């Protein structure tokens, strides 16, 4: 099978998954208890004329399959409805704004940090299997895995925020402060970023470390590693050029999976730290029964993940031609 055919097959499979998710996303919000039309427009927080407009746009007095077609049509032009909690603001405006930026910064920085540290530690631990470093990293991994992430966040705020006063207790920036220049603003922002970023990094390192370590242990049994050793290459070259390069293969699909968090944020961590991002928006929307916003968040996350998986599949096939057959 050629590369083109492979890409085509993956594309079809991704589109089917996307279609299923869009359908599920549509129906899950129609099976809400009570009158289904109420969850879309019946909210008293909206003005009557907005409600009437939505009723027409989404055909809420028509049969459900007509509604489904209208939903798809609206989706195609980027109309995701309006938010209840923000009194009629379009869902796209609520999601694609400050909140998405904040989430991308928080998730991007913590995932990158955890990925780099987890991978390097994983390689070293696998190389020195059973050493003090390996055992202590494994113990750390198990403990980090067992900790509820929101509790770790609470502990970090308690110790570094309340007792040591090193980090702020909540928020994305200090409320009510006028910044004289961008630099001051950035500094305040970064100061607030430390807490949630460290929390997520600690939890994620454990995850990447374990995958990298186990992949490397598998790779050490491969013949090419023995060959590299027999050639008299230095340890560092064997490890990073021959070993780590091959371990990147499984990492590609692992990285693709993290995209869901990149866009979706971390609901628990963002809630604990009052971080103004998508994760907290999800939580608030659930609490406020803001179904259109939830539907929108789901869709954005699903598209991001499917796209990421599709790209990962192609990268994977490019790096390892065996996959295609």
């Amino acid at each position, binding site marked *: 099978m050629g590369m083109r055919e492979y890409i085509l097959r993956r594309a079809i499979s991704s589109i089917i*998954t996307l279609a299923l998710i869009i359908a599920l996303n549509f129906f899950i919000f129609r099976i809400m208890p009570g009158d289904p039309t109420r969850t879309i427009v019946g909210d008293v927080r909206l003005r009557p004329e907005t409600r009437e407009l939505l009723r027409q746009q989404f055909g809420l007095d028509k049969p459900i399959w007509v509604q489904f077609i209208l939903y798809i049509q609206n989706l195609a032009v980027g109309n995701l409805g309006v938010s209840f909690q923000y009194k009629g603001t379009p869902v796209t405006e609520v999601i694609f704004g400050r909140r998405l930026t904040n989430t991308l910064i928080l998730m991007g920085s913590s995932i990158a940090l955890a990925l780099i540290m987890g991978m390097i530690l994983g390689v070293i631990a696998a190389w020195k299997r059973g050493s003090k470093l390996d055992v202590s990293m494994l113990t750390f991994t198990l403990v980090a895995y067992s900790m509820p992430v929101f509790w770790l966040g609470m502990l970090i705020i308690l110790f570094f925020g309340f007792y040591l006063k090193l980090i702020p207790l909540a928020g994305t920036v200090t409320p009510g402060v006028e910044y004289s220049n961008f630099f001051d603003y950035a500094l305040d922002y970064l100061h607030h970023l430390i807490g949630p970023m460290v929390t997520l990094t600690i939890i994620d390192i454990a995850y990447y470390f374990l995958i990298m370590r186990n992949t490397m*242990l598998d790779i050490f049994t491969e013949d090419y590693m023995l060959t590299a050793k027999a050639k008299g290459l230095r340890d560092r070259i064997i490890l990073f050029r021959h070993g780590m390069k091959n371990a990147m293969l499984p990492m590609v699909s692992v990285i693709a999976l993290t995209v869901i968090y990149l866009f979706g944020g971390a609901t628990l961590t963002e809630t604990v730290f009052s971080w103004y991002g998508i994760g907290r928006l999800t939580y608030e929307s659930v609490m406020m029964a803001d179904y259109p916003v939830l539907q929108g968040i789901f869709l954005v996350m699903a598209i991001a993940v499917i796209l990421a998986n599709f790209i990962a599949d192609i990268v994977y096939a490019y790096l390892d031609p065996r996959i295609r057959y």
Partner: protein
Amino acid sequence: MTKLEIEYLLPTWSEKLGIYRERVRNFWKIYSTSKMGIVGLGLVLSFFIIAVFASLIAPYDPYKFVGPPLLKPTESYILGTDHLGRDIFSRIIYGARISLLIGLVAAAISVGIGTIIGLTSGYFGGFLDAVLMRITDMFITMPTLPLMLILASILGKGLINIIIVISILYWTPTARMVRSQTISLKERPFVEASKAVGCSDLRIIGRHIAPNVFPLVFANAIITIVDAILAEAGLSFLGLGDPFQPSWGMVLHYANLAGAVVHGLWWQIIPPGACIMLLVLGFALVSYSLDQILNPRLRKR
């Protein structure tokens, strides 16, 4: 051979029992050499004991308002009281029951669903497999926590609803694993032989494939217990748990409502979270050591 002669060759019940006892003894011999496994088992068992004897250990009724609200730790209230004047220590003791109950029941249901879907998908293949695997893919692609929040808010707050929500969302890893194992077992000679002598599909699955998949399912079940305990904690912390049950996540939720973090009320924060961590760590250690035993590839190295 006549039927009687065949029965003579088959092991009797007492012999079978002996074989199982021998197996368990051998298993324990390997398991008990693992320090991690023993520590894990110890942790899990201690929480079981706490859960069973909760009413004897806890000094107060965890559901009743027994003192003034937001008390600091004193001699009569070891960990103080929450914002409604309930004894936090007693609530944490009873919390072991909730966590274990939810962990075990939700894991059993979701692993059950996963096993059935995995067996069906792997054994029958074809169109059925394609459909079931697409559904599995879809569940894997959906973000777990937000989906859990929405389902929990649709179903309403309650222990049974939390168990349903977790069960619906955590069956996918088991399904995938059982499926791939089933596919490889399907090609083995003993399955072909049973097909040749005319065994029904149900019998082949039940007698020949399922028992061989079981160790894998068992190892997976423990990880699912961990996931379920953490999921309940997260849901409860966000206020979607059962408000009438003193679960650890609920204690942390009320602590957060009372501003425990910003006021430095550590006694409301550290003990319940530590309990979650230790119980989960216990199960994780057991699962880790089981993996070392059941996975021969790891044992060799």
